[in-house]
């Protein structure tokens, strides 16, 4: 049974659509609600990966420092996840995450979720499968960005 507001938010989150209640229950015990203000930094590039977030509302910019400028390479908003690398061991944060709008999210200790995945493989499979979908989507987006389809050459390699 999922009694709490956290549980209800989890059940409605698109990232967990279709996940059986038993597993949602397990996740809800690991989740707590967090809020961040506009422009607040959630994590910095090089930080050890510690938390995994399911965003309930708001918008987060994933930023990279390039010489002389900061580039936003992606935004992540409500219904999406942030910080999947915290479920992998020995992966530091690759980007800076800064709130473009105030953010409300469910946070999970990545190490604890990873430990549950190890212990309960059905749970682990579902979580990893969803993360893989997210990572594949981002990889596809990155490939399109690299192609630079809107440039004057329209993605042609010459």
């Amino acid at each position, binding site marked *: 049974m999922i009694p709490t507001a956290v549980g209800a938010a989890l059940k409605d989150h698109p990232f967990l659509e279709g996940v059986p209640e038993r597993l949602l229950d397990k996740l809800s015990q690991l989740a707590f609600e967090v809020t961040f203000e506009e422009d607040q930094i959630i994590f910095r590039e090089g930080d050890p990966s510690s938390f995994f977030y399911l965003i309930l509302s708001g918008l987060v910019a994933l930023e990279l420092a390039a010489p002389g400028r900061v580039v*936003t390479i992606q935004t992540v908003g409500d219904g999406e996840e942030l910080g999947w690398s915290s479920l992998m061991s020995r992966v530091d944060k690759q980007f800076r995450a800064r709130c473009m709008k105030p953010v409300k999210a469910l946070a999970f200790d990545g190490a604890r979720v990873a430990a549950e995945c190890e212990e309960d493989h059905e749970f682990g499979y579902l979580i990893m499968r969803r993360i893989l979908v997210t990572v594949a989507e981002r990889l*596809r987006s990155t490939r*399109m*960005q690299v192609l630079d389809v*809107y440039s004057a050459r329209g*993605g042609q390699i010459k």
Partner: protein
Amino acid sequence: MSLALETPAAAERSVMEPVAARLASVAKETHDTFTLNLEPPEGDPVAVFQPGQFSMLYVPGVGELPISISGDPERREQLTYTIRSVGQVTYQLVTRRPGDTIGIRGPFGTAWPMKESRGKSVLIVAGGIGLAPLRPAIYHILRHRGDYNRLVVLYGGRSPRDLLYKKEFAAWGMLPDTQALATVDYGGVSWRGYVGVVTTLFRHVRMQPKETVAMLCGPEIMMRYASRELETRGIPPEQIHLSMERNMKCAVGFCGHCQMGPYFVCKDGPVFPYTSMKPYMDLYEL
């Protein structure tokens, strides 16, 4: 500059003869894109167009190009074009001065399915300069708002400085039953909107897929991915329409320059149902 060209009366003119039009104004949209307002002779059929159609614009001594009409189809006294300067002819067009003359042929090609979309929601997906050929469809819907359900405009650009019609776009987003979302491939710290490819905006759209008509224009690779994803999200493929681009010469189906499979983009297109284009868009060798 003047055009050494007499404009015969419309009835005697061949489709290959341009009409001389006066350039009324040029407005800078971005660092490389400009909107030109042309005044064709009063009452000339060159100015009567449907959303999605294009004209051939002619700069004497330089060349002629297909350019979509980007203005309001119900404002017949002016023809509006939004042109990105990418090469010789487009550069010559955007550097003309008010008062100069430009030749126009047309309008040519197929239009967005405005009639067939009545009673449905319309999802517009534009990439880069692709918003220009879609703007007349947006104007049409806004003028006949009661004929359509929701209007959603999704727009992807390279960076914030490349986005067209910024003020107008923001105003569309404030209208009832209308969503207008823009995303860029790369944002700077001052950009407060979405960053990511245009398909990442689909998750924010609220509409019934079976009751939605999608109209797409942008780089072909973007339209390919977007069409596939819209189909996955439940929009019937026959309700997805794309505007295609091919090099053109005659614009009336004579020369074969614009051929794509069995179609001539100039007369069978540029607006096609996705179902007709799908086999050709996935070809790796063309």
